[in-house]
């Protein structure tokens, strides 16, 4: 999959964002082509989550430009960005604990005025991907295990039939086996439906193996980019994110 030949689905140019006086993004450039999985890796506090949230409109960009499918979405309110069918699965899963699994999934469809038929096909798709959720349908979100909650969070995001799915740390706090299941599901989504995915991860090894391309972020700037396997071979990446971290 070549990223340069066609115009990117999401194009970010010299994007800046800040929390008060603290600059979190200091001029970020990033491209995602349709049908690609792009991994964004980096240490704690590098600005990965901020980048993802800024794409979604909150916090607002201080400078720079975000284009989705040729349309400028810089400064567009969050709920309107969701209408363009960009979906987000936030860090820490954040499912609705007192609502049932079915209601949680329905919440994902509500924001994008989807029809009854869309809802039904969306549910089919989610249940095909995560059969566990079908068994747990009437159960409350808060009673699910961590892995199931992550499945629910991804399923909920999928209910809006996204063109771009953004996942923030989907493997956070999960057992390695469950994390692998989640990554497998993302790969399946990409291969079968051609879904475009931006994945933010601390688990660099998993994420880069999954992704077509990766970006490395340090202190609010992109310092390296390349294909997933290229990045995995780079000695500085191995030193910073792999050898020091979890080994396979």
């Amino acid at each position, binding site marked *: 999959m070549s990223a340069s030949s066609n115009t990117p689905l999401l194009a970010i140019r010299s994007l800046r964002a800040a929390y008060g006086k603290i600059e979190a993004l200091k001029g970020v450039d990033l491209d995602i082509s349709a049908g690609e999985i792009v991994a964004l890796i980096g240490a704690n506090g590098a600005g990965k989550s901020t980048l993802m949230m800024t794409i*979604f409109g*909150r916090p607002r960009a201080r400078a720079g430009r975000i284009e989705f499918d040729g349309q400028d979405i810089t400064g567009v*309110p*969050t*709920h309107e*960005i*969701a*209408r363009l069918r960009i*979906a*987000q*699965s*936030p860090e820490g899963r*954040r*499912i*609705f*604990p*007192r*609502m*049932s699994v*079915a*209601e949680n999934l*329905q*919440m*994902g469809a*509500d*924001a*994008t005025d989807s029809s009854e038929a869309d809802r039904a096909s969306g*549910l089919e798709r989610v249940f095909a991907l995560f059969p566990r959720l079908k068994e747990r*349908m*009437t*159960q*409350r979100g*808060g*009673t699910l295990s961590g892995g199931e909650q992550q499945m629910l969070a991804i399923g*909920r*995001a999928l209910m*809006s039939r996204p063109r771009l799915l953004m996942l923030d740390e989907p493997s956070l706090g999960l057992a390695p086996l469950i994390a692998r299941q989640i990554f497998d599901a993302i790969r399946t989504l990409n291969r079968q439906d051609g879904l475009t995915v931006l994945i933010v991860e601390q688990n660099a090894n998993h994420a880069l193996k999954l992704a077509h391309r990766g970006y490395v972020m340090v202190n609010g700037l992109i310092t390296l980019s390349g294909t997933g396997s290229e990045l995995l071979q780079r000695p500085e990446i191995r030193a910073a994110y792999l050898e020091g971290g979890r080994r396979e």
Partner: protein
Amino acid sequence: MSAPPAAQTSRAPGAAFILKKALISAFVALVLFSLMIGVRTEAGPQGQLIYWTRFGDLAAMVAAVFGGSIIVELLRQWWGPVGTVRIVPPSVQTTLAVARRGIAPVLLVFTFLVPVLFYDERYILDLAILVLTYVMLGWGLNVVVGLAGLLDLGYVAFYAVGAYSYALLATNFGLSFWICLPLAGILAAFWGVLLGFPVLRLRGDYLAIVTLAFGEIIRLVLINWQTLTGGPNGVTGIPRPTLFGIPLTPADDGLAALLGIEFSPTHRIVFLFYIILALALLTNWVTIRLRRLPLGRAWEALREDEVACRALGINTTTTKLTAFATGAMFGGIAGAFFATRQGFISPESFTFHESALVLAIVVLGGMGSQLGVALAALAMIGGFELFRGLDQYRMLVFGMAMVLLMIWRPRGLIGHRAPTVFLKSNQAISSDLVKEGHG
């Protein structure tokens, strides 16, 4: 009890343990009772101290404690572990489930029959109207606090706006109750949005303080804007509601004269009763309908997790404002009813105490549960009347009952939340299965 024998033997303490425990209990009893029972003191005829010892009684008490401790331990062993698993027979469970499903219709039918059953008892009719007013207020606040999770301590402000809207429109412009009723609702909803805007970014304690202040502002404006509201003197001579323009008076064009029956002041009370019952049921119906729409679901999702709502692209601004407006509208309509029932309103009726009472009804009922709120309103207002005979201990007993209720049912009378999205089978999940602190 059919506890597994292995667990029985491993848990059963030996004779040494039982003896040790009994000895410790006996020692504690000896220390405690040596002065309480062992020595008896009394004031003599000249005021001097007379005392005598009762070592026999003391010995008997300590022996009783020693023996009792051994018996309790042995009983505990024979009984097996208690309180870890509660086994409710299926027959009791099904009976309870039927009772739970049946309670709402039974209550509704009973409420409809109240004026028939208690026609001659003015006190009960007045109390029933009061209870229904609070049921409606509770259901209104339930939208804001129970569903959307926005802690509102100034709900009385909307009650006041509704009451004064009707009172002023009726006395100044001669508008009828039925025209003013929706107007009062709209005006209160407008004030709800007005309160909503500045508090959009606030949650929890901060929101509570701002709404508390808002309630006070409205009350102070009512007291001080004398030219409009009459200040502390309030508004008098608020007209009574009519039945399609027919007044319920002893006059010649009154309802009684038209129907050719003898006039009785109870007619008006019964009429008021059915008005508030209809208004309360309307509130309930609208809330139940809204809960099944995306808007109502968004309210509940907002209560659960605001960040997740934003991540799903839900417009949290409109979600919050609609919750405030809807809750305020019902409060305003209840206020208009209050004004027409009393015939007189003053700022004294709209103190923080009312807000606290309505909030207590919502919390005691179980946040978000319609039936729970109705039961809590009945318990709070009716219970308060029930304890009237206790005079100065009324508040004490009432407060204790509330504390006990919250210990017994920390999620309120009806803590269980019925799901609104059904895909295949409809199965309720008890709140007991969900961990606390996430609601």
